[in-house]
């Protein structure tokens, strides 16, 4: 869909965004809030195509988020650390509960699971290179582990997904941790999806599927249902890997209080909670925008649940979904996370949606800053594609370095905020350091509305 022309819609794509030209309309023409041009275009598209809109990226609607929180820097009653001289540590250890070999990361930001299939092999390699350069981990995805990824990732988390594509005990043993994926924030309760044009020979072989078919992964695991089974499944994974590897359990944020309790009961070393802003390679738009809860409340609920169980910092908490800058990192940690995970932001750091490719984005009916058709496999930046020609545009060494740079900035920014709050470790940030700008965020993060002592719903004021 061209951003300048919302009257015509190309098949399969819903118009998103509006140019300045769109806004320049005669006075007196009033656009409906309820039926704005995006809504009208989508109704027209649905009527024409008879199928839901599938796209990548994450939720695009406005949601309460970390932007709605502010830090209270040090003042007379608090003592800051010197910004450039005093140490503010960022290391994090994941998997201290049961694993013989916990992960020791230098920064509290990890790379989330993204599949080989959704992404090109060089893109996966770049994520490994970037993570390794700064001493953090990266994660496989719904498509198995590639050699490029393993080779270039010092610390690699291997996902166990319902599809079990490419799952094998050798990769399990050469992984540094195992992540049992129950769900993801973009589509809690939904399975994976990889459309036929991205099933290349190599992807098909790794997944034991015919080439070119639409691959719709199951939403439930094939050999366990419910928390009691999960406990036994985790036991099996530990037995196969001789209790060496940390076991993560990843859930999309929905009934976070119960999910965290059950994951702890099932024996997880680490819990990953992915809020509804979490990205995806291909999911129905209706799923992305209407299922799950935002990362902000999910973070606080998960941390509080671990506190309630006496397991905070014993079972580590990773949150993801909409982490963009060091402020998001610091706020998530202040609310109780041990680390955060990034996906979409890492792709952007590597070149996704770069203005450099504007002309080519236009050719496929999109624009830099709006591209979300990861499912289509025609990514001009050569990242979300299996087309060899497109993938060749992407240099994994350069891309990896960009990811590393970006991770460094996230860390520096988080340290800056932590020092301002007087913390010698980013983990010392706490909810007491935060206030909220909106009533919603105050209620969800359980911190006071700025300038008040009012925490809606938790101190009897409401």
């Amino acid at each position, binding site marked *: 869909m061209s951003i300048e022309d919302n009257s015509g819609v190309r098949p399969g794509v819903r118009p998103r965004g509006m140019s300045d030209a769109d806004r320049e309309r005669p006075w007196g023409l009033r656009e409906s809030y309820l039926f704005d041009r995006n809504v009208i275009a989508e109704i027209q598209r649905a009527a024409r195509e008879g199928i839901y809109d599938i796209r990548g990226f994450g939720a695009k609607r406005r949601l309460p988020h970390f932007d709605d929180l502010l830090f209270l820097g040090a003042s007379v009653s608090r003592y800051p650390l010197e910004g450039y001289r005093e140490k503010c540590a960022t290391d994090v250890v994941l998997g201290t509960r049961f694993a013989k070999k916990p992960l020791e990361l230098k920064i509290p930001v990890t790379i989330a699971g993204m599949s080989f299939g959704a992404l090109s092999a060089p893109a996966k390699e770049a994520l490994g290179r970037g993570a390794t350069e700064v001493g953090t981990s990266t994660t496989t995805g719904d498509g198995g582990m590639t050699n490029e990824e393993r080779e270039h990732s010092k610390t690699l988390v291997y996902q166990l997904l319902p599809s079990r594509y490419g799952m094998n005990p050798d990769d399990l043993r050469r992984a540094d941790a195992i992540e049992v994926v129950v769900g993801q924030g973009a589509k809690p309760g939904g399975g994976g999806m990889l459309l036929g044009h991205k099933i290349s020979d190599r992807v098909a072989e790794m997944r034991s599927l015919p080439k070119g078919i639409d691959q719709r992964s199951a939403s439930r695991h094939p*050999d*366990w249902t419910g928390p009691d089974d999960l406990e036994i499944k985790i036991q*099996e994974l530990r037995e*196969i*890997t001789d209790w060496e590897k940390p076991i993560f359990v990843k859930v999309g944020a929905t009934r976070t209080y119960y999910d965290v309790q059950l994951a702890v009961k099932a024996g997880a070393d680490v819990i990953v909670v992915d809020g509804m802003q979490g990205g995806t390679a291909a999911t129905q738009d209706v799923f992305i925008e209407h299922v799950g809860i935002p990362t902000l409340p999910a973070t606080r609920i998960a941390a509080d649940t671990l506190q309630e169980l006496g397991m905070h910092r014993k079972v580590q908490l990773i949150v993801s979904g909409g982490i963009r800058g060091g402020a998001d990192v610091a706020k998530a940690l202040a609310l109780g996370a041990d680390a955060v995970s990034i996906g979409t932001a890492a792709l952007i750091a590597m070149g996704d949606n770069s203005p450099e490719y504007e002309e080519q984005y236009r050719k496929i009916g999109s624009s830099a800053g709006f591209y979300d058709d990861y499912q289509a496999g025609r990514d001009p930046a050569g990242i979300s594609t299996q087309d060899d020609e497109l993938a060749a545009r992407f240099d994994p060494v350069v891309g990896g370095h960009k990811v590393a740079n970006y991770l460094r900035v996230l860390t520096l920014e988080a340290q800056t905020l932590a020092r301002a709050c007087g913390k010698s470790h980013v983990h010392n940030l706490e909810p007491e350091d935060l206030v909220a700008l909106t009533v919603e965020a105050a209620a969800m993060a359980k911190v006071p509305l700025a300038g008040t002592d009012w925490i809606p719903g938790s101190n009897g004021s409401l």
Partner: protein
Amino acid sequence: MAVVASETAELEVVDLSTTSVRELNQRLHHLAGGAPGPRGFRILNPSGAHALACGLDAEIDVEIEGHVGYYCAGMNKLATVRVHGNASTGIAENLMSGRVVVEGNVSQSAGATGRGGLLVVRGDASSRCGISMKGIDIVVGGSVGHMSAFMAQTGCLVVCGDAGDALGDSIYEARLYIRGSVAGLGADCIEKEMREEHVTQVAGLLEASGIDADASDFRRYGSARQLYNFKIDNAGAY
């Protein structure tokens, strides 16, 4: 670890009433890559324990004398595991190679996502037998429950008895051979012609399994391949 026989003997006996599952599995894992040690194991008193003899990677024979819990022989390579009893959920899940034989009945998700090797169940298998199978061959002497071979990708499921409802739902390229009745076929699963090559394939699998049945009595089911690419006209099939 209570080892009854000497470690240099051909057969090592491990009694799970005095040895932990962890010790047993560690012992078996140490034999990976052709490491020296006995090539035969006899496991006593399994008592329904979970994750027994899983993650093996050695050409060894493991005889389990009794019932086993979940995920017995899960993700194994090369080994032969024989259960002289019944098995719970996920026997031989994600099997890579080698062989797993259960003398009794098995619970749900037998051979789930298996990528190679052979699973033989002499009794019946419950629901979801062969779910998401990716190359494993499964031979069941009795019947299988509902949703068997759901999203089955490759490999063969041979059932000497009957199949429950929704057989082969959303199946890919796996071959299903059923001798008895089929309560119902799942989405995109159809009966297909049983040609000579298929009779030969079934005969080979029956022989490898030590099950006496006439291969020509079986009927073949597989994918109609109508749901391989999403078409809105098929929405009613989901």
